[in-house]
């Protein structure tokens, strides 16, 4: 969870999301365990330091808190990190958003589900959409494994499987699905108090309230809908992790999982209208859509209800690819989103 984005379009949207998260637990009456332990991004070179300075300044201009840390401050915050000058990835400083942190992801889904149900939303589980009936006015019939559903408007919020639904609807999206993995260690007494990201090796790590280290890295490097990760990606992620934290080497991997993420060229979501008049898109979240959930839902509801983009997501339309109006956070800031 963070809103440390470079471009104003992203910053406004993700900051709105972060603020909604800050009160979500109470709003849903469900503890989502939003743990604002800070999100620290490491700098390993002079160039990293300069990029981070640009980024931290841009955030402040966007009205989002940010601070730069020097090596000693990083070392104090993360004692387990190898901050020695001879380290393979020397820590030259870092950049922290203190309101960033982690959230218990299942709790978010459950809290929302319960609240939506209370508002009269039908959530039909184990019900796969298998096709649509298309007419000139759009798609008004949704075929599922449990029967047919008529709908005036349809929203697609199927992340890595949006491309398969688009196939059913007869259009293509500039989007590729990949497996993204994460894994946890066995539970340990507290050893890491903040979320740490090293863009240089594409590794992030935090410690859950249960004591498990939660570790993630880059995508599995081929397109896939299969929800199982490969081993080389785990190995590569761990090489980076252990180079940063040599004392974590004897800890053990307990669980691993993979999800299918919907990657677009500029790592910015696609939220708005689709080529079919009554079908709306909420996808392109790639590796970082969880932090966007409250704001994404907020803006998506607006879009479906009013048949026009919410001001916060006006720049996120599918048409941006044709116009070339990409909002390339990843390339601009050099980190995975």
């Amino acid at each position, binding site marked *: 969870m963070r809103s440390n984005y470079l471009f104003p379009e992203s910053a406004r949207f993700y900051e709105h999301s972060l603020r909604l998260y800050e009160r979500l637990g109470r709003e849903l009456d469900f503890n989502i365990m939003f743990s604002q332990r800070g999100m620290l991004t490491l700098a390993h070179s002079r160039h990293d330091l300069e990029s981070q300075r640009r980024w931290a300044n841009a955030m402040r201009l966007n009205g989002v808190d940010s601070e730069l840390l020097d090596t000693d401050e990083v070392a104090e915050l993360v004692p387990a990190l190898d901050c020695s000058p001879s380290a393979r990835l020397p820590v030259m400083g870092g950049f922290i958003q203190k309101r960033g942190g982690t959230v218990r992801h299942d709790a978010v889904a459950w809290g929302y589900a319960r609240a939506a149900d209370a508002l009269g939303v039908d959530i039909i589980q184990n019900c796969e959409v298998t096709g649509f009936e298309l007419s000139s006015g759009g798609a008004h019939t949704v075929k599922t494994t449990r029967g047919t559903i008529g709908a005036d408007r349809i929203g697609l919020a199927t992340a890595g499987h949006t491309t398969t639904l688009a196939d059913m609807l007869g259009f293509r999206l500039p989007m590729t699905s990949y497996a993204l993995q994460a894994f946890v260690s066995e539970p340990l007494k507290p050893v890491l108090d903040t979320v740490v990201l090293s863009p240089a090796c594409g590794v992030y790590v935090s410690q859950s309230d249960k004591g498990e280290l939660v570790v993630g890295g880059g995508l599995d490097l081929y397109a896939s809908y299969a929800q199982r990760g490969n081993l080389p990606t785990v190995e590569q992620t761990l090489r980076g992790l252990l*180079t940063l934290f040599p004392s974590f080497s004897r800890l053990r991997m307990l669980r691993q999982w993979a999800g299918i993420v919907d990657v677009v060229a500029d790592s910015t979501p696609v939220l708005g209208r689709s080529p079919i008049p009554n079908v709306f898109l909420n996808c392109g979240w790639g590796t970082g859509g969880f932090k966007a959930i409250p704001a994404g839902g907020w803006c998506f509801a607006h879009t479906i209800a009013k048949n026009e983009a919410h001001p916060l997501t006006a720049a996120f339309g599918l048409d941006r690819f044709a116009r070339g109006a990409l909002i390339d956070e990843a390339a601009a800031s050099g980190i995975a989103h």
Partner: protein
Amino acid sequence: MSGGSRREFATGIDISRALRFRFNNRSYVGHPGDTLASALLANGVQLLARSFKYHRPRGILAAGAEEPNAIVQLGTGEAAEPNLKATEIELFDGLVARSVNCWPSPSFDLRSAYQLAAPLMGAGFYYKTFMWPDWHLFEGPIRRAAGLGIAPQDPDPDRYIHKYAACDVLVVGGGPAGLASAWEAAEAGLDVILAEIDFRLGGSSLWRGERNEAERLEAALRAHANVRVLTRTNVFGYYDHNALVAVEKLDGEGARQRLWKFRAKRVVLATGAIERPLVFANNDRPGVMLASAAQSYLRRWGILHGRQIVVFTNNNSAYEAATSFVEAGADVTIIDVRPRAKIPDIAAVRVLPGHVVKAVVGRRAANGVTIGALDGGQTFTLQCDLVLMSGGWSPTVHLFSQSGGSLRFDEATQSFIPNRAVQAVECVGAAAGELSGLDIEPLWEVPGPGPKFVDFANDVTAKDIGLAREHSFISVEHLKRYTTLGMGIDQGKTSNVNGLAIMGELTARAPGDVGTTKFRPPYTPVTFGALAGPLVGDLYRPVRYLPAHDWHAAHGAVFEEYGGWARPTAYPFPGETWEQAAQREAATARKGCVLLDASPLGKIEVVGKDAGTFLDRIYVGNASSLKVGSARYGLMLNENGIIIDDGVFVRLREDRYLVHTTSSGADRIAAMFDEWLQCEWTGLDVAILPTTTQWATLTVSGPDASEVIRETGTDIDLDDFPHMTFREGSVAQLSARVLRASFTGEASYEISVEASNATQLVGALERAGRPLLLMPMGIEALMILRTEKGFLHVGVDTDGTTLPGDVGMAGPIARKASDFIGRRSLLRQEALREDRLQLVGLQSHKGVLPVGAQVLRDRSVPGPSDGFVTSSYHSPTLDGPVALGLVRAGRSRIGERVKLYDMGEHHSAEIVDTVFFDKAGERLRA
């Protein structure tokens, strides 16, 4: 109850030798062949852990990888290993271990008060509480209470290695079924690997006492030429294409663990089955154990750790354990839930049919059980010192399921068994559900009050499952996440089936309809270090060293990593700061002459009939019109028109180009070339030859550069060698390629020789340059010089949004006839906007601007940004600050003064042209 002496029939230990070890600061003695668990049991240590959440006293439940309770920290200091199961630690002399998650000890634990709060802390408890006023108030204490072992603080002193192996047949599991399969395959002439997680082969034969056949097969296999036997080897992952991964624990001097990557034509899973506990009140007390585990401790390790034993079962398998204990002299009562008609007839054992154990009596050790009929009625108490339980068996289908195989619930054995395989794999023995004669009657939960544990590792009780049901978390995946069932350190090996079956009963679904959660690697936890292997620390993307590294070091270079290379940043004289050195070096380049090691600069040869056509498509500018022996500067774009690299390319011959990339682009661009050639432009006759590391490149730059080259001795005619041309010849008697191109703004000669001749060349240049006061120059000075000149540094002065027009390089595009990568994107609406960020100079009148400072549009923070500073230095030549920046519509705002913001401070600057020095560019042509 004490350990007493070992029984002589123990199949697994060498009683003649003693091993001394310490546990929780007390000394004990065990034997070779012991696990820490068996050695502790033999010493009468029964209470050795506290549970994860409620800190309840716990003992040993199992004898293998499925153990959920007996978690210890092995070793101390840098070599400590947190969270090991005592059942998986092979005893060695001098072993030191202690309990985790309790203080000061498992028998007197200050957090044991958590038990009292247990009624409040059921499933979903956290989700419903701690919200007011704020979760952050509660989180700290909760974090401190959570977790089990303690992570070491110092780097791991050990090494880990990886190894690949291919075979015809991989047999996983060295029990009777695995041994037989391996033997059969080997005899058929197949190449076999047999992997067993235990340090002994034999599997169930070790505790069932049928050792003869297993021993015969083991000996035969170990002697067989086709067979490789690996013990202590945990096969933990099954991936696509029959790729399996295992980790082997090693002894002795070398690496600590070896990660095996198997590729097997066929896989045989002989992984056995895991016994299930029964779910009744206080079934987690020390002294309550799986029947098969107790039988193991008795038969394999010779430990009779109970005299008055109650066996609670719903199937026949526990009768074997009961018999063993009777034979060993214990007093045994079997409580069997099944009616008398189903009970096997065993003399000498007391059996109570149709009864259940309602609860265990005793806190730190079981000292009795309450017994009653299943359907209520009177209960009574029976004294005992050991309770064995068997709720049936779950075939170890983890790897089969990971392989993609489906499972089905088998009524006869009340277990999930392999159904359809999708890879070349078969299950044999108990793993295949061969559990004949169980005659099991399902008993998922004994009715009645009290804490009835399902998942011992995560303290999940039957009541928690009821809560999940009440809160509608009835799908098996929801059940898991809501209650944390099966997410503990044992990954639910003994608890998953019980848990999902109880949920099934609560929701009127058969276990098969509830289904299992997804099985994923690893089967049991695997050391991070083993997964990472040797490529960590200094070997993580190893830094590349310049061919003349030692020369630079001897000349006082300060190195930093740039694009994967250790490069000299500056060569400070004694008493000089690094910054002063860079200033001096830059000034020298303008006045005299400097020597820069440019070896990391990317060099890719593009060869073939269509090389020119290919590069026309790659570069924004033209390549095919270039004359042989000439050079040209070019930009490369991606399909979105974004600048991704730049450099000078040379036409070596009609059909041969030398492409220079940035040093960080060397690998990336070569790969990109290959992708275009192999995937898109398959018809082009072009080959790609990355040669970066074959050459050492030394750049001599400055007004005196040509003089230095002349002094060094060369057969190249320096008087006929203009800027942006290329010559081959000899320099310092070395065969060399020399390019005249300049990133400093001064006349420059980039001399490339075979990498192994680097030191010789640099030495010759140094000697030749001595009278001219030639000095080495690092990267920092180079950056100062190119900023003075307004030369673009891709990735610094550009980012992932920068188009050629933004840096004033749209010129060649209009003139170019052919298509190139990114061209169409440059015509999109967004690319044509007037208010794009454009590269300009920024002139500060008060000190050096910080890189990353933002240009403010209307002086307010927060407020809109109008760009940012990309490069900024003090210029020794101009004795003042120079800076470049990307500024909104910058080129049309030359002369305007802007305000900048940097981390709380404000600056101001004037927008100026990018070139601060020698605007006409006369010096580099000199």
